[in-house]
């Protein structure tokens, strides 16, 4: 009887083993890259909205204060979405007949909220408090990007837990003076951060990174 396996079969067997190991390593590398790619976190991807609202017009061109619509951002966990009344305070005067604003008008007439699609939704096991951040010097722009230049609202950061922790582990370089929190294109404190703040955040490290700060 001849050989059980030809030499070609033996070579194929060895090549398969090597290929299998390479594929396993490759899968790991691909998974590493893919989970960090912006597209995996919907960065830059606009959602389908009932009304084609433009932040670049309202916030950028017209310079309406963020808090005019997101009225609870300095007081509550939720920044707050504007009711139809808020929209109608202007749109009862301007763009009265525009068809794109039809959902706003019917919402106002029927007292039914507009169903917006959330762009920055966090998982329900994350406790995020807008006021806690905004009143302590974390600017809108730090997490939401240059909203004043967005024709359609998109994510600019991953909002991954690692991204949160990057700041929670060392918040000082990200903080702004209180007056600049709502401003767009303004920089962080840089060199003039008060010393007592530095000391405070060095000590707050434990609290800011403990599990139950965000997972309650």
């Amino acid at each position, binding site marked *: 009887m001849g050989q*059980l*396996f030809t030499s070609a079969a033996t070579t194929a*067997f060895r090549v398969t083993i090597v290929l299998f190991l390479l594929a396993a390593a490759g899968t790991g590398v691909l998974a590493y890259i893919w*989970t960090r790619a912006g597209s995996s976190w919907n960065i830059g991807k606009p959602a389908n909205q009932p009304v084609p609202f433009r932040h670049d017009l309202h916030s950028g061109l017209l310079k309406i204060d963020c808090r005019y619509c997101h009225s609870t951002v300095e007081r509550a966990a939720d920044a707050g979405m504007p009711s139809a009344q808020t929209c109608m305070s202007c749109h009862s005067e301007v763009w009265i007949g525009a068809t794109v604003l039809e959902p706003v008008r019917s919402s106002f007439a029927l007292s039914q909220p507009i169903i917006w699609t959330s762009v920055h939704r966090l998982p329900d096991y994350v406790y995020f408090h807008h006021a806690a951040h905004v009143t302590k010097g974390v600017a809108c722009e730090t997490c939401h990007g240059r909203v004043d230049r967005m024709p359609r609202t998109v994510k600019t950061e*991953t909002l*991954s*837990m*690692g991204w949160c*922790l990057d700041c929670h582990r060392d918040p000082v370089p990200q903080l702004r003076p209180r007056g600049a929190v709502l401003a767009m294109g303004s920089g962080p404190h840089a060199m003039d951060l008060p010393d007592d703040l530095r000391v405070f955040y060095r000590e707050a490290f434990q609290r800011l990174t403990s599990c139950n700060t965000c997972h309650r």
Partner: protein
Amino acid sequence: MARGAEISTTAVAEVPLSAQFGAAWWIALIVSGTLVLLLGYTLVSVALVGVGMWGVNVPFVWGFDLINYAWWIGIANGASLFAAVLVLRRHDLRTAVNRFAEGVAFFAVICAGIFPIIHLGRPWLFYWVFPYPATFEVWPQFRSTLTWDFWAISTHAILTSLLWYVGLIPDLATLRDRARHVGVKRAYGIFALGWRSSVRHWAYHQRAYRGVAILVLPLILIMQSVVAFEFAVTLVPDWHETRQPLHFIATGLAQGLSIVLLVAVLLRWALHLERHIDNHDVELLGKLVLASALVSGYLYVDEIAAAFFTDRLTRDALLNRMTGDYAGLYWSAIVYSVLIPQLLWLRLARRSVLAGIVVGVSIGIGVWFDRFSIIVGGLQTDYLPSTWRTYAPTLPETGLFLGTLGLFATLLLLFVRFLPVVSMFETRHDEHLEKL
């Protein structure tokens, strides 16, 4: 090993190569296969519904899941420690028992590994205990027993499967050469990895086999201690004791040896391997089981003695295990794992198939009761009287346990059907020594 007259390994090789295997094997496979289906059903239902299906609730967050994990891993540890020592000492008992002792260890690791994963509640996220560069930028908590379980079980699975497989390679080559159909030859040939029995092959093989055996040795002590530490590091009075690792290692060894004895007498009887697993082997195994049962007995006495020299809370906790709601488990553990094995003092019992089965099963049951008594009975009267409750397993938990028994039996049956249950190359080696 076989003594006296010349012995051929053909009888061992012919078992997996035979075309027919009889109705008994099929019936056994169908029964155990049904239990594997039950295992699948309970696993899927727990994954879909959640661990609320189990009887576990505060303070008993560990119930059947940990009891059965600790029990299975004890079998794995005892059997692989035994096998590794035999390989390293080149003891002649290894020819008879090593192959299936290593197999038993590997199958038990598989059964053990199921429990810590399914008891996570979200078993599909089990890889979170592995330190990989996750996007949430947090490493696993190394003070958590979950992480210890991960490292212990994965290391255990790798080493026991290696020990088993490395030992199998020359025998797979024998099966390849003896098989009659070319398809069967190829199947065994692939797993024999081109073994040609050259001197160089044998030299490498010995080095690899003994090398893995050396790695197994410390692993088993560490592994069984890890299981014990999962209890000892807590503040529960009955668990927080330094003697815990010793208790787990000793009872685990008795458990592993008893399962090896059980499988040995069953294989010897069912496959007519009286010459390969001879009277001397079974008797030696019986003596080892007896000795390990005596050590377990000593540790029970030690536990009682230690309780008298320790603080009141620890003593009360032990007294509660002895006299409380779960007292039956405590005393049954002693009866089954220490007293019944004393049967093996009799030469007649050491050579009897029935006694081998009785003692093998009895120690298995006894240690299971012991784990139940420690995990549930030990926790029952904690510091908070308001949480003094009782725990009883629900039907899904029991199904899960029966399912792993079925999985173990299925793997064992398939092993018996397709692989040589006795190490042929070691038998040939020892026979060669005798001739010199």
